[in-house]
């Protein structure tokens, strides 16, 4: 999920445009709108040839499905198609909110996101602060190269590693527990273990890579601040707390806002790979619910309704987050 509050500012007339318009007005006393558009197209048609494929793609693959979202309010049948299926109003939404599984999925989504936020958000900040304190460049570079790596590894591979490592018979985790005298635990079938494993895996995979943003913010802190602190006899620890951390606070706050805006974006691909019926109780989120009901179960209309609910809440969250971060900082990240 990404967004760009700056972009609305990009469309106004530029100096070139104004100068151009002035010239145009001089050349022809009173050009009609038709003439102007015609002339413009004659001169600039190539730009539109470049733009059309992209816009067409967006219309066919992303906007047409938005039109298809109407099945959330319809009794959809494959044979009748989207347009001809009969309207049934809010029936699917009533069904959803009376459905224990959907409510459970909603609750799980929020709980898992919340854990991800509490445990996952501070980690990259901490890492960036620590990386910044390392003076040995080779050590720093090597460590960074390694901790960025899991970001580029597919969720299937990560899931494969998790499943292997937590396997009851051969897994390394149970081997260690066995050495401590604990009986093997079949972690991935235990509902109480799902969230810690899932959230922990997410942190392991992404914390390193996410620290890049904070490292960039730290790199932007003025060196004169540190120089005068050294003159005053500040220790590295004091400089970290009194200079570095306050200097990157705006970045931290913006990242936090973006993160909360994307609250509903739980990486459901990973959940599909790791969960099983025994752990649905704690693992099933809205998107996995949609996947099972819709794509696997064929209840397209009901699943589309769940998807619409998800998308609208996400949209409101993202827009709110955008508005807040824009107000908070003019030098927005976007």
């Amino acid at each position, binding site marked *: *999920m*990404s*967004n*760009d509050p700056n*972009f*609305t500012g*990009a469309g106004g007339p530029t100096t*070139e*445009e104004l100068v151009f318009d002035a010239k145009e007005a001089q050349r022809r006393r009173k050009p009609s709108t038709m003439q102007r*558009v015609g002339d413009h197209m004659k001169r*600039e048609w190539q*730009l*539109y040839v*470049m733009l059309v*494929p*992209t*816009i067409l*793609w967006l219309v*066919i*693959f*992303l*906007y047409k*499905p938005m039109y*298809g979202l109407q099945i959330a309010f319809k009794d959809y049948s494959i044979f009748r*198609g*989207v347009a001809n299926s009969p309207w049934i109003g809010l029936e699917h939404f009533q069904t959803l909110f009376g459905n224990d599984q959907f409510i459970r999925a909603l609750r799980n989504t929020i709980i898992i996101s919340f854990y991800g936020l509490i445990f996952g958000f501070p980690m990259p900040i901490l890492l960036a602060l620590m990386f910044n*304190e*390392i*003076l*040995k460049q080779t*050590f720093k570079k090597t*460590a960074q190269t*390694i901790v960025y*790596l899991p970001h*580029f*590894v*597919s*969720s*299937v*591979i990560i899931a*494969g*590693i998790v499943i*292997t490592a937590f*396997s009851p018979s*051969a*897994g390394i985790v149970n*081997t260690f527990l066995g050495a401590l005298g604990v009986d093997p635990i079949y972690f991935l079938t235990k509902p109480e273990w799902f969230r810690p494993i899932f959230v922990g895996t997410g942190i*392991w995979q992404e914390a390193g890579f996410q620290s*890049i*943003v904070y490292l*960039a913010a730290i790199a932007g802190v003025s060196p004169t601040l540190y120089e005068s602190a050294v003159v005053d006899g500040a220790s*590295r620890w004091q400089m970290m707390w009194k200079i570095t951390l306050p200097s990157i606070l705006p970045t931290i706050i913006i990242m936090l806002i*973006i993160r909360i805006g994307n609250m509903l974006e739980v990486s459901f691909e990973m959940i599909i790979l790791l969960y099983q019926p025994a752990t649905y109780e704690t693992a099933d989120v809205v998107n996995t619910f*949609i996947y099972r009901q819709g*794509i696997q179960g064929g209840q397209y209309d009901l*699943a*589309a309704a769940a998807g619409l609910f998800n*998308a609208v809440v996400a*949209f409101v969250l*993202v827009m709110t987050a955008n508005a807040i971060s824009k107000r908070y900082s003019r030098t927005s990240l976007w």
Partner: protein
Amino acid sequence: MFVIMNMVLIGLFTLSTLYPFIYIASLSMSTGFEARAGNVILTPVGFTLEAYKQVLSEPLFWSSYMNTFIYTIGGTIMSLLFIIPGAYALSKPQLYGRRFWNLVVAFTMWFNAGLIPFFLNMRDLGLLDSYLGIIIGFAVNGFNIILLRNFFEGIPQSFEEAARMDGANEFQVLWKVYMPLSKPAIATVALFCIVSRWNGFFWAMVLLQDEEKIPLQVYLRKVIVELSDDEEFATSLLTAAYSVETVTAAIIVCSIIPILLIYPFLQKYFSKGILLGGVKE
């Protein structure tokens, strides 16, 4: 004291990142018996390459590997063909309705119709179970367009003036002036595409039924999820030279190697890209 503590902690975190990969690599080169018994901790036990022999003798492994290359290369080229000209046009101030077109692009990043309408649309377009569906259906994304558009906007007008004097048209200006100046940004976008293509599995799993068309990640999932649930198969391999664990580990190693090969480029451009376009969550 502080400095040493810090280095120790970073070192520990780094090792904990690295360890699972070493563990998997060692597992893939151990005998199935030792792996099942949980004797592999750091280095291979009872060194053998039987698991690799098993993996490499599977035709589906090779066809899925081939398919992943097709989807990655075809998909990335397709993405660039759409994104570069589109971003260029959107960066031009004289474009009519520029604000509106930018909104059309950006809105897709904020609001998404969701899994089901997208799936039904692909079905209605006849793109289920087809190479073309995977290659074209995921070609464009708003974030990449805006990243590139911002980069193009940052290139000063003066660079293209000489070319325009020589009578270059828009396509020539893009090709001869903008493309060479935008190499890092284009490389970033291309790498975003390559990685998401190489790693993508969900839609390939949903859209492709025909086993001959599935990419590596879907094949890998089949092996990991289906075999690890299959206790009978697992125990039948108990004494063999390979086991479910070692075979899984071997496939993981095989599928991770190409990512490791391009990793130096990834590291260089991704950190640039993440700062160029803002933060991608």
